[in-house]
C-alpha cells in the first residue's frame, strides 16, 4: 500500500526528559522503527514516558492518545508536545484502564526487567523498568487489557526482552496472531518487537 509510512527517528523533534522519566533508548528506537502507519488512523501509546514515540506519530499526521501512570511522565509528554507544537491526547492512567475507544494501532514499550535483576535498582528505577517478578506480568496485563480496544484488523506493537518474553508469547497465543518484526542483540539480552492481531 503506497500510503503506508514506516517510522524513522526525527532529530528535529525536541525531546526533553524530566528526572524520573524514562529517557528514549535502544528499545524506544526499535519500537519506533517497527511501526507502519497511514495518515488519519488512531493510535494509542501505553506508557508513553517522554512522549518520544507518540510525538513521532503525531508529526506523521495520525491521531494519538498517550497514557502513563506517572504524573511526571504525563507532564513531560505534555510539555514536549507543546514545545514541538504537536497535538497528542494525554491521559494519566494505569496502562489503558481509563480508555474505552477503539484504536487502529496500540503501542507499548513496557518495563520488562525481572524483579530479581531489579534488586540493584532504586525505587524510582524499579517503577520504570521492572515488569513484575518474572519481567512479563505487566506486558501480559497489557495484552489482556487492550484486546477490546483494538479495531478489527488493527495492530498491537509490543517490545519484549529475551529474558522475559516466553511467558508473554505463550499467553498471547490464545488470543492473538503474532509476527516477529525486528530485533536487536545487546550483550545480555535480545530485544524484539512483535506485532499482534486479534485471532479471527
Amino acid at each position, binding site marked *: 500500500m503506497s500510503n503506508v509510512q514506516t517510522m524513522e527517528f526525527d532529530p528535529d523533534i525536541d525531546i526533553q526528559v524530566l528526572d524520573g522519566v524514562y529517557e528514549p533508548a535502544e528499545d524506544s528506537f526499535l519500537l519506533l522503527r517497527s511501526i507502519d502507519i497511514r495518515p488519519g488512523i488512531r493510535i494509542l501509546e501505553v506508557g508513553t514516558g517522554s512522549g518520544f514515540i507518540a510525538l513521532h506519530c503525531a508529526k506523521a499526521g495520525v491521531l494519538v492518545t498517550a497514557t502513563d501512570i506517572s504524573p511526571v511522565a504525563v507532564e513531560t509528554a*505534555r510539555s514536549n508536545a507543546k514545545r514541538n507544537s504537536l497535538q497528542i491526547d*494525554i491521559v494519566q492512567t*494505569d496502562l489503558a*484502564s*481509563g*480508555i*474505552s475507544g477503539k484504536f487502529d494501532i496500540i503501542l507499548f514499550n513496557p518495563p520488562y526487567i525481572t524483579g530479581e535483576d531489579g534488586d540493584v535498582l532504586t525505587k524510582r528505577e524499579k517503577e520504570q523498568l521492572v515488569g513484575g517478578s518474572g519481567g512479563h506480568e505487566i506486558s501480559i496485563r497489557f495484552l489482556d487489557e487492550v484486546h477490546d480496544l483494538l479495531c478489527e484488523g488493527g495492530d498491537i506493537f509490543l517490545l519484549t526482552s529475551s529474558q522475559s518474553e516466553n511467558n508473554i508469547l505463550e499467553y498471547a497465543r490464545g488470543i492473538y496472531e503474532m509476527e516477529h518484526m525486528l530485533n536487536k542483540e545487546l550483550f545480555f539480552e535480545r530485544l524484539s518487537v512483535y506485532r499482534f492481531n486479534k485471532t479471527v
Partner: protein
Amino acid sequence: MKHDMMEILCCPVCKSDLELKAMKEQDGDVIEGILACKKCSHDYKIENSIPNLLPP
C-alpha cells in the same frame, strides 16, 4: 484536554461513561475540571489539561 476526548475515556473502576464538568477552559481545551463517573460516582480531576484516571 479536548472535549472530544470524552469519546475515548471511561471510569477505570467500572468502565462506565464519564461526565465532564469543566472549571477552566482556554482555546477549547479543558485546563481544570472534574470527570464524574455516571455509575459508581467516583470523581477524577483534570489538572493542567491532563485527566487523571487513576482509581481514587
